[in-house]
């Protein structure tokens, strides 16, 4: 399996009035082709920021200060952080797309489902649809069903493919009869969206596409968002806690949906969550994050059977189990404005050594495919 996404030494800082927040501190992560990688950690440990960095969508006042994000593009390896904005716009939603946490917030309340999902197609698959439209018009002309504007319509679509910014299109869009050419395009996109929503498990998509987001239930809205993310068959799908605000029964529906769609489209998924149960269900590999750095990466069996990092152990122990006492990690997540020196976990760590407070541990491979960043394991203290 080749690496489809590679995050290398990513450093992200936020410049706020209170000080510099060191949100991400040399994050290294690889996503292999066709796998589901779980990224777990507590609130504020930088999970979502890692995801947003991959799309180069870090909100202000955040700044990516170092590192690379490599993506396979065709046969080349491209560093996304070195690309310009127009190029990134082509990548977002097409090659890499994201499912956000709150579907109701993510969907625009003043557009219907149809208009929002159509935007993805307009942005990324416009040419494809224009060619389809031209073919349809040609067929109509051949069979003699075409209206008197058919030739004009065809020329408009050709223009749209060749030169989408031409003034001719802009003028035509403002003239009542002439701007009808877009109806054909919308009709084709609508058909495609109905199919898409049907494959998302929405019962009657014809009715749903004319609804506004507030008319949808939480599970339904999340299905629409998943549909939008998968509209262009992305190679990489980033799911940022897509089921956190849903009920367990709906959560199970969405997890099953993601699983079947992954099989169908063969995407690689970076799944962000704080629920260890979901990780056990869905992921092949797990990366555990704490206070802006990754502390352990291993296969899902290995993480649950043989966790090595003290934080991972604490995280697994704090899952309530009947009959056992609740264990918790002492203290709270530190502020990232002045993060603890050395290992960021040392002040909460029950096994902390003297070196932990002074030097930052390096990521090492203790076993095959089991990486850990901790001083407790020999070979790290170089």
């Amino acid at each position, binding site marked *: 399996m080749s690496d489809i996404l590679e995050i290398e030494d990513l450093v992200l800082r936020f410049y706020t009035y209170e000080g510099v927040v060191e949100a991400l501190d040399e994050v290294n992560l690889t996503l292999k082709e066709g796998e589901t990688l779980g990224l777990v950690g507590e609130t504020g440990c930088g999970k979502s920021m890692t995801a947003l960095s991959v799309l180069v969508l870090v909100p202000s006042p955040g700044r990516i200060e170092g590192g690379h994000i490599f993506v396979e593009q065709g046969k080349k390896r491209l560093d996304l952080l070195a690309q310009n904005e127009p190029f990134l716009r082509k990548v977002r939603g097409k090659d890499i797309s994201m499912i956000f946490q709150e579907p109701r917030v993510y969907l625009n309340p003043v557009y219907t489902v149809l208009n929002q999902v159509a935007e993805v197609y307009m942005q990324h698959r416009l040419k494809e649809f224009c060619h389809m439209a031209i073919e349809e018009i040609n067929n109509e002309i051949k069979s003699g069903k075409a209206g008197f504007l058919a030739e004009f319509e065809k020329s408009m679509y050709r223009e749209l493919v060749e030169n989408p910014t031409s003034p001719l299109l802009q003028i035509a869009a403002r003239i009542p009869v002439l701007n009808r050419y877009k109806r054909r395009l919308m009709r084709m996109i609508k058909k495609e969206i109905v199919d898409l929503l049907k494959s998302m498990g929405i019962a009657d998509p014809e009715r749903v596409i004319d609804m506004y987001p507030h008319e949808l239930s939480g*599970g339904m809205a999340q299905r629409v968002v998943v549909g939008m993310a998968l509209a262009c068959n992305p190679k990489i799908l980033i799911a940022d806690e897509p089921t956190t605000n849903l009920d367990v029964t709906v959560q*199970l529906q969405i997890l099953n949906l993601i699983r079947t769609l992954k099989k169908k489209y063969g995407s690689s998924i970076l799944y962000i969550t704080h629920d260890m149960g979901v990780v056990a269900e869905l992921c092949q590999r797990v990366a555990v994050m704490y206070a802006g750095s990754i502390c352990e990466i291993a296969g899902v*069996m290995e993480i*649950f059977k043989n966790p090595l990092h003290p934080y991972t152990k*604490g*995280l697994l122990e704090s899952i309530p189990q009947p009959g*056992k006492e*609740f264990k*918790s990690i002492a203290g709270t997540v530190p502020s990232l404005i002045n993060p603890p020196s050395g290992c960021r976990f040392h002040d909460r760590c029950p096994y902390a050594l003297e070196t932990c407070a002074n030097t930052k541990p390096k990521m090492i491979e203790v076993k095959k495919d089991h990486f850990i960043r901790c001083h407790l394991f020999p070979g790290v203290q170089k």
Partner: protein
Amino acid sequence: MSSLIETHGLKKYYPVTGGVLKRKIAEVKAVDDVSIDIKKGECFGLVGESGCGKTTLGKTIIRLLEPNGGCIFFDAPSDVLEEAEKLASNDPDSKRLKEFRKQYDLSTFKGSKLRHMRRKMQIVYQDPTTSLDPRMLVKDIVGEPLIVQKIARGAEAKERVIEMLKKVGLTEKQVYRFPHEFSGGQRQRIAVARALVVHPQFVVLDEPTSAVDVSVRAQLLNLFEELQKDLGLTYMFISHDLSVVECTSDRVAVMYLGKIVEFARTEELYKSPLHPYSIALLTAIPVPDPTLKRERVILTGEVPSPINPPLGCRFHPRCPKMMEICRREEPRLRDLGNGHFVACHLF
């Protein structure tokens, strides 16, 4: 063990208004004919999907919401409860029943009598960032119930506040701080201190751990357990997180669209759930064990609107074991022995 709270056919309907005159056009049956009993000193769990009426039930029991029907007996002797039940079924208009209700039924209390009862029952809300006034000091937040209830004032109140804060794991120094200076877990501790400062007998915990992280959640759950032992509290633990309820509660009720569908001791309910909805709900929990392969019941569709609940059994449109009778008749909550109650035609 005697019951602390017993409800008989408790109802809470919200009106839906519409039209120019804002007349009532429909009702949301948030809590419909719920009869439960909560024993002294236990932790009573209440689970269900969002919008099924869990919070409404919790609030109605402690009279933060006005019930539309039914009665809530609070701390009534068991012989009174027995007699009241008999009277209610045989002779609902009898004088004796009215007397009982006047004496023990929370839903008939008014004015200063109700205010006095509020001392005995408190609530901890879901999100401490919104349930604590951002412009009040911790001292005032926790001390307010004492002043309202005329239990203590001034220096005495402060003393009791500090004592309570220490009990929930905060320090004396934090008395003169505002809520925004605390972390999520600490804020929830303040909310707990505010609820417990009047020494209540009964506390409704309305999803107290859903707004905090996993590691903090365990700390809070430990705190609840300790306080229950120390102060002899009775809890009603409302949550949608089934694994938390499993660890904290002695008995659990499963709610669906305003009705209790199943009700049993925790071990029994989690080991052998009977109602199809409980089975689906329990198998839907993701278990943190990648080796485990389970058989699952996947529900299709979503919870129907409580304005127009399905006729017959409310679960029948989503039920995998639906029978003909489910469409027509509403099942009653039946005792299957050993304190296991189910409302389903299958049994």
